Protein backbone atom coordinates (compact mmCIF):
# COMPACT_ATOMS: atom_id res chain seq x y z
CA UNK A 1 0.00 0.00 0.00
CA UNK A 2 1.20 3.52 -0.68
CA UNK A 3 1.99 5.79 2.21
CA UNK A 4 -0.71 7.13 4.42
CA UNK A 5 0.70 10.57 5.01
CA UNK A 6 -0.12 14.14 4.13
CA UNK A 7 2.50 16.59 2.97
CA UNK A 8 2.03 20.30 2.61
CA UNK A 9 4.38 23.18 2.00
CA UNK A 10 3.99 25.73 4.74
CA UNK A 11 6.62 28.17 3.46
CA UNK A 12 8.34 30.70 5.67
CA UNK A 13 7.88 30.94 9.44
CA UNK A 14 9.22 33.51 11.84
CA UNK A 15 12.73 32.51 12.78
CA UNK A 16 15.25 34.31 14.90
CA UNK A 17 18.72 32.91 15.34
CA UNK A 18 19.96 33.38 18.90
CA UNK A 19 23.58 32.85 19.90
CA UNK A 20 25.50 33.49 23.08
CA UNK A 21 25.32 32.36 26.66
CA UNK A 22 21.87 31.42 27.85
CA UNK A 23 22.08 33.82 30.76
CA UNK A 24 23.00 36.70 28.48
CA UNK A 25 20.19 35.90 26.08
CA UNK A 26 17.72 35.47 28.90
CA UNK A 27 18.88 38.75 30.34
CA UNK A 28 18.26 40.57 27.07
CA UNK A 29 15.04 38.95 25.92
CA UNK A 30 14.07 36.38 28.50
CA UNK A 31 10.58 37.64 29.08
CA UNK A 32 9.72 37.56 25.43
CA UNK A 33 10.98 34.04 24.98
CA UNK A 34 9.62 30.65 25.95
CA UNK A 35 11.64 28.98 28.70
CA UNK A 36 15.04 27.69 27.63
CA UNK A 37 14.90 23.93 26.98
CA UNK A 38 17.49 22.01 28.98
CA UNK A 39 18.15 19.09 26.67
CA UNK A 40 19.98 19.50 23.37
CA UNK A 41 17.78 19.12 20.32
CA UNK A 42 14.51 19.71 22.10
CA UNK A 43 12.18 22.67 22.20
CA UNK A 44 10.09 24.51 24.74
CA UNK A 45 7.03 26.51 23.83
CA UNK A 46 4.94 29.44 24.91
CA UNK A 47 2.14 31.30 23.12
CA UNK A 48 2.58 29.53 19.78
CA UNK A 49 6.30 30.25 19.97
CA UNK A 50 8.92 27.59 20.30
CA UNK A 51 12.50 27.94 21.43
CA UNK A 52 14.66 25.25 19.87
CA UNK A 53 17.98 24.28 21.44
CA UNK A 54 19.83 23.33 18.27
CA UNK A 55 23.52 23.81 19.00
CA UNK A 56 26.05 24.80 21.64
CA UNK A 57 25.02 28.28 22.84
CA UNK A 58 22.63 28.33 19.92
CA UNK A 59 18.84 28.56 19.80
CA UNK A 60 16.16 29.27 17.25
CA UNK A 61 12.98 31.13 18.05
CA UNK A 62 10.25 29.72 15.86
CA UNK A 63 6.77 31.25 15.52
CA UNK A 64 4.03 31.87 12.96
CA UNK A 65 5.07 34.33 10.31
CA UNK A 66 2.55 36.89 11.55
CA UNK A 67 4.49 37.35 14.77
CA UNK A 68 7.69 38.48 13.08
CA UNK A 69 7.29 42.24 13.35
CA UNK A 70 6.16 42.07 16.95
CA UNK A 71 9.11 39.83 17.93
CA UNK A 72 11.56 42.01 16.06
CA UNK A 73 10.39 44.91 18.18
CA UNK A 74 10.84 42.96 21.37
CA UNK A 75 14.14 41.35 20.52
CA UNK A 76 15.69 44.46 18.88
CA UNK A 77 18.48 42.50 17.22
CA UNK A 78 20.49 45.54 16.19
CA UNK A 79 20.58 46.85 19.74
CA UNK A 80 21.62 43.59 21.37
CA UNK A 81 24.84 43.67 23.38
CA UNK A 82 28.01 42.35 21.75
CA UNK A 83 28.06 39.07 23.66
CA UNK A 84 24.82 37.89 22.08
CA UNK A 85 23.76 37.60 18.48
CA UNK A 86 20.17 37.85 17.36
CA UNK A 87 19.53 37.66 13.63
CA UNK A 88 16.21 37.48 11.87
CA UNK A 89 16.42 34.56 9.46
CA UNK A 90 12.75 33.90 8.71
CA UNK A 91 13.38 33.90 4.98
CA UNK A 92 16.22 31.40 5.09
CA UNK A 93 14.07 28.32 5.62
CA UNK A 94 11.01 26.92 3.94
CA UNK A 95 8.83 24.52 5.94
CA UNK A 96 6.97 21.35 5.05
CA UNK A 97 4.45 19.59 7.24
CA UNK A 98 4.42 15.79 7.12
CA UNK A 99 1.55 14.20 9.03
CA UNK A 100 -0.33 10.96 9.22
CA UNK A 101 0.31 7.39 10.32
CA UNK A 102 3.22 6.91 7.90
CA UNK A 103 4.90 10.26 8.55
CA UNK A 104 7.84 8.58 10.23
CA UNK A 105 8.37 6.41 7.16
CA UNK A 106 8.59 9.51 4.99
CA UNK A 107 11.19 10.92 7.38
CA UNK A 108 13.15 7.68 7.10
CA UNK A 109 13.24 8.07 3.33
CA UNK A 110 14.37 11.67 3.63
CA UNK A 111 16.81 11.53 6.49
CA UNK A 112 19.19 9.31 8.45
CA UNK A 113 17.76 10.73 11.68
CA UNK A 114 16.30 8.12 13.99
CA UNK A 115 12.89 9.69 14.49
CA UNK A 116 11.54 6.90 16.70
CA UNK A 117 9.73 8.29 19.70
CA UNK A 118 12.12 6.53 22.08
CA UNK A 119 15.01 8.51 20.59
CA UNK A 120 13.45 11.68 19.20
CA UNK A 121 10.97 12.79 21.83
CA UNK A 122 7.67 14.69 21.72
CA UNK A 123 9.53 17.99 21.79
CA UNK A 124 12.36 16.82 19.50
CA UNK A 125 13.93 19.51 17.33
CA UNK A 126 17.18 19.11 15.46
CA UNK A 127 19.19 19.93 12.42
CA UNK A 128 20.05 16.86 10.42
CA UNK A 129 20.37 15.80 6.81
CA UNK A 130 17.40 15.35 4.48
CA UNK A 131 17.62 14.62 0.76
CA UNK A 132 21.29 15.58 0.85
CA UNK A 133 20.61 18.96 2.46
CA UNK A 134 20.87 20.47 5.90
CA UNK A 135 17.37 20.25 7.33
CA UNK A 136 15.53 21.14 10.49
CA UNK A 137 13.18 18.44 11.74
CA UNK A 138 10.65 19.05 14.50
CA UNK A 139 8.27 16.53 15.93
CA UNK A 140 4.71 17.85 15.73
CA UNK A 141 1.35 16.55 16.74
CA UNK A 142 0.55 13.71 14.31
CA UNK A 143 3.84 14.00 12.44
CA UNK A 144 6.79 16.17 11.70
CA UNK A 145 7.86 19.51 10.36
CA UNK A 146 10.75 19.45 7.95
CA UNK A 147 12.43 22.59 6.68
CA UNK A 148 15.36 23.33 4.42
CA UNK A 149 17.17 26.35 3.09
CA UNK A 150 14.55 28.30 1.17
CA UNK A 151 16.29 28.15 -2.22
CA UNK A 152 16.06 24.35 -2.13
CA UNK A 153 12.33 24.39 -1.45
CA UNK A 154 11.23 23.47 -4.97
CA UNK A 155 13.67 20.60 -5.05
CA UNK A 156 12.50 19.18 -1.73
CA UNK A 157 8.88 19.50 -2.81
CA UNK A 158 9.81 17.55 -5.92
CA UNK A 159 11.54 14.89 -3.79
CA UNK A 160 8.63 14.55 -1.37
CA UNK A 161 6.21 14.09 -4.26
CA UNK A 162 8.40 11.30 -5.54
CA UNK A 163 8.47 9.69 -2.10
CA UNK A 164 4.69 9.77 -1.93
CA UNK A 165 4.10 8.53 -5.48
Amino acid sequence: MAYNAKISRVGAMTLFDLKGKQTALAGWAGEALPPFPNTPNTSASKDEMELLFIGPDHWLLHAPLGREAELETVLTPTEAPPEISIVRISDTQTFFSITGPDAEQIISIASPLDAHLSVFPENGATFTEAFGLKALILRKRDGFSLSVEQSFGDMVEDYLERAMS
Partner: protein
Amino acid sequence: MLLIKCPFCRERSEIEFVYGGPVGPDRPDPTICTDDEWLDYLLMVPNPTGPVEERWWHAKGCGDWFTIWRSTVTHEVVDRPGDE
Protein backbone atom coordinates in the same frame (compact mmCIF):
# COMPACT_ATOMS: atom_id res chain seq x y z
CA MET B 1 29.22 5.44 6.63
CA LEU B 2 30.47 6.04 10.14
CA LEU B 3 28.32 6.71 13.16
CA ILE B 4 29.92 9.79 14.66
CA LYS B 5 29.32 11.01 18.15
CA CYS B 6 28.81 14.75 18.10
CA PRO B 7 29.35 16.26 21.53
CA PHE B 8 26.03 18.10 21.26
CA CYS B 9 23.80 15.86 19.13
CA ARG B 10 25.18 12.41 20.09
CA GLU B 11 25.47 9.65 17.47
CA ARG B 12 24.69 10.74 13.95
CA SER B 13 25.36 9.37 10.49
CA GLU B 14 28.54 10.42 8.74
CA ILE B 15 26.58 12.12 5.96
CA GLU B 16 25.67 14.90 8.37
CA PHE B 17 29.36 15.71 8.81
CA VAL B 18 32.24 17.19 6.88
CA TYR B 19 35.68 15.70 7.35
CA GLY B 20 38.30 18.21 8.42
CA GLY B 21 41.54 16.26 8.25
CA PRO B 22 43.83 14.74 10.84
CA VAL B 23 45.08 16.75 13.77
CA GLY B 24 48.80 17.37 13.37
CA PRO B 25 51.14 19.62 15.28
CA ASP B 26 49.74 22.87 16.67
CA ARG B 27 50.03 25.88 14.43
CA PRO B 28 53.42 27.40 15.20
CA ASP B 29 53.74 31.14 15.60
CA PRO B 30 54.53 32.11 12.02
CA THR B 31 56.40 35.20 13.11
CA ILE B 32 59.09 33.21 14.90
CA CYS B 33 59.07 29.62 13.66
CA THR B 34 61.54 28.21 11.13
CA ASP B 35 60.55 27.26 7.61
CA ASP B 36 60.88 23.60 8.50
CA GLU B 37 58.60 23.95 11.49
CA TRP B 38 56.05 25.68 9.32
CA LEU B 39 56.25 23.09 6.54
CA ASP B 40 55.97 20.26 9.03
CA TYR B 41 52.84 21.84 10.42
CA LEU B 42 51.41 22.40 7.00
CA LEU B 43 52.25 19.18 5.17
CA MET B 44 53.43 16.43 7.45
CA VAL B 45 50.11 15.21 8.69
CA PRO B 46 50.01 12.08 10.81
CA ASN B 47 49.32 8.99 8.71
CA PRO B 48 49.34 6.10 11.16
CA THR B 49 48.05 2.59 10.70
CA GLY B 50 46.01 2.82 13.85
CA PRO B 51 44.37 5.54 15.91
CA VAL B 52 44.44 9.05 14.50
CA GLU B 53 42.81 12.15 15.86
CA GLU B 54 40.71 13.83 13.24
CA ARG B 55 38.44 16.80 12.92
CA TRP B 56 34.81 16.64 11.93
CA TRP B 57 32.30 19.40 11.41
CA HIS B 58 28.65 18.76 12.10
CA ALA B 59 27.79 20.76 9.02
CA LYS B 60 24.24 19.54 8.64
CA GLY B 61 23.61 19.41 12.36
CA CYS B 62 24.56 21.74 15.17
CA GLY B 63 27.62 23.24 13.46
CA ASP B 64 30.09 22.07 16.06
CA TRP B 65 33.70 21.33 15.08
CA PHE B 66 35.19 18.61 17.23
CA THR B 67 37.68 15.77 17.09
CA ILE B 68 37.41 12.04 17.43
CA TRP B 69 40.02 9.31 17.59
CA ARG B 70 39.46 6.71 14.94
CA SER B 71 41.46 3.70 13.86
CA THR B 72 42.47 4.01 10.23
CA VAL B 73 42.62 0.22 10.03
CA THR B 74 39.28 -0.82 11.51
CA HIS B 75 37.45 2.53 11.29
CA GLU B 76 36.26 1.98 14.86
CA VAL B 77 36.12 5.07 17.04
CA VAL B 78 38.59 4.50 19.84
CA ASP B 79 39.64 6.13 23.06
CA ARG B 80 42.36 8.73 22.93
CA PRO B 81 45.57 6.72 23.36
CA GLY B 82 46.51 6.79 27.02
CA ASP B 83 42.90 7.22 28.14
CA GLU B 84 41.12 4.34 29.76
